């Protein structure tokens, strides 16, 4: 009973924060709403007997990733989302996609509700940090190593992406861009003259 009430409280909080994230135009408000979703999901992980994942969720998502996002928002000094000259049909596409996914969600809900309930085997070891660590370094050693290599690649990629070009490179890029635009204008003039 108590876990039922907890589930509804945190599920409602998560959905409200998610809607507020999509609704707000200011990216900083969106980011803070997203932190609310992460905290609600972390509480749900605790009720699902996964304390390790709950702590990692707070540490990595709310701690590291969202700090990075908020840092970028502050660095770029973004103003509010402009809403004009938007392709109108995208709203229809988004609404349709949302309806299809919601229908699928309710289908899954009823299908799982009707399915014969498997006896829940509440083994005490499942979800403990010890068993996760044992599985990670014995059975799933190769995926963990691949994740390590991928993190290294992400570090290098992040540095390469946000590196500042030197003066010559900037001039080359700007020149190429200006040539392209001039060509485009000539083409447009030609079309008008035609």
């Amino acid at each position, binding site marked *: 009973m108590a876990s039922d009430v907890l589930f509804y409280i945190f599920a409602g909080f998560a959905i409200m924060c998610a809607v507020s994230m*999509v609704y707000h135009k200011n990216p900083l408000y969106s980011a803070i709403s997203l932190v609310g979703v992460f905290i609600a*999901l972390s509480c749900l992980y605790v009720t*699902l007997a996964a304390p390790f994942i709950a702590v990692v969720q707070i540490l990595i998502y709310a701690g590291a990733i969202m700090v990075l996002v908020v840092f970028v928002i502050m660095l770029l000094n973004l103003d509010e989302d402009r809403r004009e000259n938007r392709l109108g049909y995208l709203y229809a596409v988004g609404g349709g996609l949302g309806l299809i996914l919601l229908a699928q969600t*309710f289908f899954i809900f009823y299908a799982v509700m009707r399915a014969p309930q498997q006896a829940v*085997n509440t*083994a005490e070891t499942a979800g403990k940090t010890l068993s996760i660590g044992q599985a990670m370094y014995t059975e799933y050693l190769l995926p963990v190593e691949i994740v390590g290599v991928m993190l290294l690649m992400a570090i290098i990629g992040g540095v390469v992406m946000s590196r500042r070009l030197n003066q010559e490179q900037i001039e080359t890029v700007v020149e190429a861009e200006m040539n392209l635009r001039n060509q485009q204008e000539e083409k447009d003039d030609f079309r008008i003259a035609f």
Partner: protein
Amino acid sequence: MEPSLASYLALSGILFTIGAVGVIFKRNAIGMFMCIELMLNSVNLTFVAFSRYYADTTGQLFVFMVMAVAACEAAVGLGIIIAFFRNRISVDVDDASLLKN
């Protein structure tokens, strides 16, 4: 009486829907990035729920992998956003039209 597996799956599906619709509605690259994070999180909830109801640790292990992928995505994606902002003085995805035509 615990909430059933179906209710966790329904919550996860609703969160995924909100994220997917948000990716299409938002024009801001950082907003789209955050919607993708929301979708990844809803999938994580599914993993943990199945791991609980089938008493198997593997689901939680793969949640860990998904989090590592999300961290990589954050590093590279925000780098791309900063590079894009430097060239266009905007993070509006409609301005990313260099490959058009």
